[in-house]
């Protein structure tokens, strides 16, 4: 938001300047400006001299900036006072509740894991439904899990993985008793692997609430719900702990860490069929969508979920626009210089003096963000505000950017340092 605002302001500003007749005399000639009587220009030797009324310019700029800025400042004010006021309100409420507790009007029950699991089982776990993916000839070609996260009258919204609905012709929501309901795909984000479906039903179905995945802790007890290996095992519930947070790793096997999602790593057992299913905290809130696990004979207990905060942002985008505006894709293939010093020796490539980190570009994908800006052999040393150290550090820091953000890139090309500006980040191109 802030970034966006700033760019508007700069654009307006330059417009204002030129509009004021703030022109400069070419060397050796004199120009009389006409748009403002306070402006005179003269020539002195080979240096132009301009006399201006700074106040006038300031006031004109002022008016324009004022106009464009009002709403943003209003929001900032609301945010500022909200926080303060919420804290007071929170403190007041706590005091009130404590008084009530002291007076014996409210009983506090400490609840253990067992009680929370039973509560979850009775409530939000039932918001996890089955999804059947039918091909054109009406045969089921894939099944997975999905989570009902929103209800508007009799319209229900379900989030699942894109790979659950991939290549499907029609889709059905499958309830525990085997009832099938026609569902429509609203949109998807193939990069993060999420999709939103909706369906209509007069049944009173459970709806989850999104938890705040930023507040998850390593070691926190979590519960996965889904349909491993198909609907014979509908609504399977497995427990585990958060093993790690913000995990970025190479998913597609190209030896480059994928930069789209900082996954939640957990050790609750998940299997194919859990895809698109829920990861809950012990408050019964949705804190992740299970999407992948490391799978090999010697590997176990390494499941990954897309954090709920990213999920929430993406499904809101999809509801509104039919597509996600969350994750930009750069569309570059590169060698991480810091982590692959031997590559350049083997390939006989001489890096410029003093360059020991950055991305050595080996490919630029057509129609993606960097297409037209970056060339093979460029060494990118800065993207946006991220000064590149290693690919791991980059993918973590770059994750703050969204589609539509405008960034600059600093690179070394044929020994020259070049800054390319005004690159607008694009979404993935399907």
């Amino acid at each position, binding site marked *: 938001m802030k970034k966006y605002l700033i760019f508007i302001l700069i654009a307006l500003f330059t417009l204002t300047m030129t509009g004021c007749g703030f022109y400069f005399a070419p060397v050796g000639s004199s120009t009389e400006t006409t748009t403002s009587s306070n402006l005179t220009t003269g020539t002195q030797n080979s240096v132009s001299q301009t006399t201006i009324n700074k106040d006038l310019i300031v006031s004109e700029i002022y008016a324009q900036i004022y106009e464009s800025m009002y709403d943003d400042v209003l929001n900032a004010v609301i945010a500022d006072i909200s926080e303060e006021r919420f804290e007071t309100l929170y403190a007041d409420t706590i005091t009130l509740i404590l008084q009530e507790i002291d007076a014996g009007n409210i009983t*506090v*029950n400490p609840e253990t894991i067992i009680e929370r699991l039973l509560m979850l089982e009775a409530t939000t776990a039932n918001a996890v439904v089955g999804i059947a993916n039918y091909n054109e000839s009406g045969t089921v070609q894939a099944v997975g899990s999905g989570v009902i996260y929103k209800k508007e009258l009799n319209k229900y919204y379900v989030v699942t993985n894109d790979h659950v609905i991939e290549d499907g012709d029609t889709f059905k929501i499958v309830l525990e008793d085997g009832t099938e309901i026609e569902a429509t795909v609203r949109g998807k984000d193939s990069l993060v692997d999420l999709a939103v479906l909706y369906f209509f039903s007069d049944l009173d179905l459970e709806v989850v609430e999104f938890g705040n995945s930023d507040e998850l802790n390593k070691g926190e007890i979590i519960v996965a719900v889904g349909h491993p290996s198909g609907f014979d095992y509908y609504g399977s519930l497995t427990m585990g702990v958060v093993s790690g947070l913000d995990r970025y790793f190479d998913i597609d096997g190209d030896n480059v860490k994928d930069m789209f999602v900082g996954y939640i790593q957990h050790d609750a057992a998940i299997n194919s069929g859990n895809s698109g299913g829920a990861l809950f905290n012990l408050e019964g809130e949705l804190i992740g969508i299970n999407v992948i696990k490391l799978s090999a004979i010697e*590997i176990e207990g390494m499941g990954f979920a897309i954090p709920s905060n990213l999920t929430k942002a993406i499904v809101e985008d999809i509801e509104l626009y039919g597509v996600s505006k969350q994750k930009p894709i750069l569309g570059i293939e590169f060698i991480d210089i810091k982590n692959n010093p031997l590559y350049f020796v083997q390939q006989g490539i001489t890096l410029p003096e003093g360059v020991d980190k950055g991305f050595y570009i080996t490919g630029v994908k057509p129609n993606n963000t960097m297409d037209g800006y970056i060339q093979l052999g460029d060494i990118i040393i800065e993207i946006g505000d991220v000064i590149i150290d290693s690919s791991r550090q980059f993918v973590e820091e770059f994750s703050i950017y969204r589609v539509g953000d405008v960034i600059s890139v600093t690179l070394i090309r044929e020994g020259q340092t070049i800054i390319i500006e005004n690159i607008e980040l694009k979404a993935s191109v399907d």
Partner: protein
Amino acid sequence: MKKIVFIFLSIIVAGLGSIKIISQTTENTSTLTTTTTTIETTNYSDLVAEIYEEVYAQVYAEIYSEIMAEIDQEFYDTIYADYENKILELLNNEEIGVFYDTLQTKIYDVVALADSSVFGVLTQAEGIGIAGGSGVVYKYDESSETYYLVTNQHVIEGGDAFEIIFSDESTVSANLIGSDEDTDIAVLTFKSEKTIVVTELGDSSSLERGQFIIAAGNPESFDFYGSITLGVISGLKRTLSGNSTVKYIQHDAAINPGNSGGPIYNLEGQVVGINVAKYATSTIEGMGFSIPVNTAKTVISEIENGD
């Protein structure tokens, strides 16, 4: 922000040469009450930046105070009504459930300890990494400012140089003090300025089947640095084919290649075992094995004493 402004504007004026700008005192035609000042500069972008800063700050301050002046009780009420109602609903309840479970709080304590006590071990031979594993710091020698870390012998096997890897990917080199092939224990020492907490080696003789344990380490690769998994002790005094020296702890916390040398903790934050092996076939899961810490302690002291 400044940076963006400057870069953007300097491009526009590039090639125009340096210009002397003097402002002129005139009738105050502007709505601003600032006194007109004479500024002398030879740089267009300096002036631009100056005006920009001045105007920006003024606009912001003015709008802010305008809005603040308009805020009345109604404004507050609108913003907070929903929130207030929601939170006050709590007061209508006769019972409030609060999640409180000692297992969860103890896991958090162990996680905090493991995060500053369990690190990665990278073994190199002739400059190329040949094995990665985990290890836990069990001792700090103040006189030499040296940390002692225990890991598996099979993690350091065949190496000629060793590194300790921290969560921020930084490394320090480590010295191999000694290792024991029979028990699969090795001891490394290293120096570091980082905040490192020494983990207490507990007592494995009092372990019981069914007791909760927490495994910490770096499964698969350092992409999954500092992973935590929970399980229980499935069995004690297990023998594994090919080793008659060690009576292993069997547990069901998920461990994977890379967890080797990492600890299992009890819920009191003591190391009770060193992970070393697991069954890995397509039909088996949840069968991990650790060297009991008492066995490890004996071997560690032998190694430290140079035996």
